[in-house]
């Protein structure tokens, strides 16, 4: 019974974070939510008895993709390196 509760919670959180990745207004928040989503995915893989994927998801899915995306967001905030019109 408790395991069903746990799985239900994980699934609910997965869907909720997935929605908030798209719904959050700031790009930075969206990426943070995406990383949280990746962590939850890792948890889901553990629950699905797939520790290999859990490791890969934590390292690649959440970790590395997250860093790449955060770096890109920072880059967008800084603006294009040369002045070209009034982009942010």
């Amino acid at each position, binding site marked *: 019974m408790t*395991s*069903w509760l746990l*799985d*239900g919670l994980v*699934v609910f959180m*997965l*869907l909720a974070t*997935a*929605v908030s*990745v*798209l719904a959050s*207004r*700031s*790009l930075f928040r*969206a*990426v943070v939510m*995406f990383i949280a*989503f990746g962590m939850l*995915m890792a948890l*889901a*893989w553990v*629950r*699905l*008895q*797939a520790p*290999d*994927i859990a490791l*890969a*998801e934590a390292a*690649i*899915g959440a970790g*590395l*993709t997250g860093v*790449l*995306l955060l770096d*890109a*967001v920072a*880059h*967008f*905030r800084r*603006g*294009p*390196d*040369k002045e*070209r*019109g*009034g*982009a*942010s």
Partner: protein
Amino acid sequence: MSVHLLYAFAGAGVFTIGLFGMVFMVHLLRKLLAFNLMGSGTFLVLVGLAQHRNGVDPVPQALVLTGIVVAIAATALALVLIRRYFHLTGQVTLEPGSRDDEGHS
């Protein structure tokens, strides 16, 4: 209904959310996030549905590992392209001429 099937349904949901983002969002980075959601949803369906019938199944697990690596390759390439595109034009969307800053989608 097994736990595996529950995750397969969750995967279907996540895929749809990603698809929505891919179609509706304009910001390239958000599209990329949505693509990754689609990928995660697909992987959940793949493992969940297979393990519902087979029990723990190493084959889809291996496929998902392959899929994750392919997905990050695509994501990283897209990011390089997006960043260079932004660098050249100052744009973060594909619509020519429109300038969209990082706030809203």
